[in-house]
């Protein structure tokens, strides 16, 4: 599913790294985890990653694993470093007030 559609349906706040005028990337799965080396071990490329980790390292992980986007759940505050890095390496970074479970349920309803 197109990222633009997911932003709209889940009412995500766009934080950084996303340019809607550019080619719209696809998300092909969902991965929920707050432990970075588990994400390194188990995520698949083009997964959307739902986490409450907001440290700059999440951007490195998403970029290395070629994830389609990061959604920060629970309205967690995001480090400024993280926002700058997401823009620098073009990792779409979104935020939501919803829990990881609620976000995943909605993504599941959308067929992601």
């Amino acid at each position, binding site marked *: 599913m197109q990222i633009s559609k997911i932003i709209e349906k889940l009412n995500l706040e766009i934080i950084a790294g996303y340019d809607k005028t550019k080619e719209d990337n696809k998300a092909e799965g969902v991965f929920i985890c*707050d*432990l*970075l*080396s*588990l994400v*390194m*071990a188990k995520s698949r*490329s083009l997964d959307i990653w739902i*986490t409450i*980790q907001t*440290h*700059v*390292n*999440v*951007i*490195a*992980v998403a*970029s*290395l*694993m*070629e994830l389609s986007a990061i959604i920060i759940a629970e309205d967690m505050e995001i480090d400024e*470093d993280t926002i700058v*890095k997401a823009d620098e*390496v073009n990792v779409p970074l979104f935020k939501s007030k919803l829990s990881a479970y609620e976000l995943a349920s909605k993504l599941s309803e959308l067929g992601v």
Partner: protein
Amino acid sequence: MDDKSGVINLEYEVIRYDFSKAGQASSEIKKVLKQLGINSNIVRKVAIATYEAEMNIAIHSLGGRIIVTITESNINISALDYGPGIENIKLAMEEGFSTAPNNIRELGFGAGMGLPNMKRCSDVFEICSKKNKGTKVDMKISLN
């Protein structure tokens, strides 16, 4: 980077607790491999192995370096540091074993999966460590 007889060498310094660089070495290595047109599955394995090595040096050691050598047939990764070494390598290699302190765990590290990830991604994996000396991890990923 230098290029003698088709061999490429990359070398990166990793500084203790320098998270602001956040995976810079592994990101740059990945970029070079992509530019060389290397198969994406192999790029992914190298990215995982170098990232975990980089983080372990930054978190658990006094600092060190990552050296990558790309030949026609292999990618060789060496991660070495200046100490303090690993007391029990067998234990350190177990999934879930971690000595990461709480402030580091809060950042999402400390699953105890880094070394197992490195091993899983390598065709040849060797680790040697001396208490109070340092640790050296050698990984070989075949290009064929």
